[in-house]
């Protein structure tokens, strides 16, 4: 995978993170993280397990309240009550987060159905279109999420995130538990989404191949601190010992 050479005029939202702090009990998880995510870019936050990546992502979508600092999405505080009505944000959870009591089609069309944004026939059309975008057969729409493979569930979750044309899409470990071929497909879907809509994509992962394959810029988070930030080339060239250790970690049987 290669990041696209040219981007469409960005409709994505910029994100500004300033001195973000969060602790669970006595355990600090984010220790004053500050950086900017540019409108329309694919930003990958990489780091080892337990470094605070997913907690960071949950702050972006307003599922966690920070102990200190702030996040502004398109200039608005991420914690504000009406951010959901001003901008359309979407997240693809590590587990997919699909509602198991609904069919795939009902899951994908949930946003439109619940907010009564379109008539029934139009929703059916949008659902078919979004499923096609992630290369899923319309027949899958009648199935329930627990009847699908892990890769298909992830793609359905991406299709659901695409409904309503979000301006900021967050991906939490999108390739975890997937084989390399399906992981490659998911990576391509993220790039396609970004190219087609110009939405800002924030991807949290510890998958190095995915990160270097899709990112415009990469941040490396370790123990709740952002230690390096730059383009994939700058990240590879960084002398930071933790980062180099993370990038060089491979299994070599004795």
């Amino acid at each position, binding site marked *: 995978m290669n990041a696209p050479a040219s981007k469409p005029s960005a409709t994505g939202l910029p994100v500004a993170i300033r001195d973000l702090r969060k602790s669970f009990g006595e355990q600090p998880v984010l220790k004053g993280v500050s950086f900017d995510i540019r409108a329309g870019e694919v930003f990958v936050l990489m780091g080892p397990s337990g470094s605070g990546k997913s907690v960071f992502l949950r702050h972006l979508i*307003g*599922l966690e309240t920070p102990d200190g600092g702030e996040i502004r999405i398109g200039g608005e505080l991420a914690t504000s009550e009406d951010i*959901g009505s001003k901008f359309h944000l979407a*997240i693809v*959870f590590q*587990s*997919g*987060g*699909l*509602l198991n009591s609904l069919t795939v089609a009902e899951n994908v069309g949930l946003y439109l159905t619940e907010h009564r944004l379109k008539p029934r026939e139009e929703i059916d059309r949008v659902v078919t279109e979004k499923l096609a975008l992630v290369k899923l057969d319309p027949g899958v729409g009648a199935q329930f999420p627990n009847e699908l493979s892990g890769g298909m569930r992830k793609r359905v979750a991406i299709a659901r995130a695409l409904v309503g044309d979000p301006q900021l899409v967050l991906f939490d470990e999108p390739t975890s538990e997937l084989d390399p071929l399906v992981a490659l497909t998911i990576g391509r879907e993220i790039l396609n989404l970004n190219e087609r809509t110009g939405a800002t994509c924030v991807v949290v992962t510890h998958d190095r191949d995915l990160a270097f394959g899709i990112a415009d810029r990469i941040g490396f988070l370790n123990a709740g601190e952002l230690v390096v930030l730059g383009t994939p080339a700058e990240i590879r060239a960084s002398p930071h010992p933790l980062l180099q250790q993370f990038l060089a970690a491979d299994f070599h049987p004795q």
Partner: protein
Amino acid sequence: MFQNLGEMLLLLAATLRAIPRAWRDRRKVADQLFDIGNASLFMACMLSLFIGGVLALQTGPVLVQRGLGSSLGGLVALGMCKELAPVMMAVLIAGRIGSAMAAELGSMRVYQEIDALRTLNIDPVNYLVMPRVLAIAIALPCLVVFANLVGWTGGALVASFNDRISVTWSAFFGNLRSVVEFSDLLNGLIKSFFFAVVIGVVSCHQGLTTLGGPRGIGRSVTKAVVNSLVLILLLDYVLTRLLLPLDNGWRF
């Protein structure tokens, strides 16, 4: 404990605020009603039949010995409609429906389905809690009416067929009609409505606050049932005391 109570009161307030959406979400409410009826009607029938029968069997011989056999219908009927039907149906619904609700919402919380709803700008209280609480609040009083009818029938059957009682069907129901007033039925229905709200709110609260994996879901289910039962019994005393003035009400 007080934090839990506070959270439950807030959830109740949010659920009441969501009630105007009920007509819009009538399909969700109807689905829940269907599930509740499907899961509990047969059990309610068996439970009520035997409670009515046992009540007649316990009190019938004593009343007959003292020449008060003709009062059996009224005694069984009052016992059923004012106390046993509302409490036993509430216990049944807490165990069968409340536990299932806590498990379902707990699993949705653990597997990030609730978070997914929030990110789609869908309020979980509107989408999940209100239809469930409303469905229980409609279903439980209906079940109590059903339990009364079946329980009275159970009592009448035992009264007429047991040799030590031998109160005829017509004498049983004749006494029942002269003793039971509409206010007695209303008493049980009012109680059951409040029990239903308690079961719905407690179970949904436990589900929505589930932490951890499958063990967390198990803990939530246990807490939902135990807390519901404790609150039902406490509330039973309070409501019985508050509803005493109804005893001078309309005749049935």
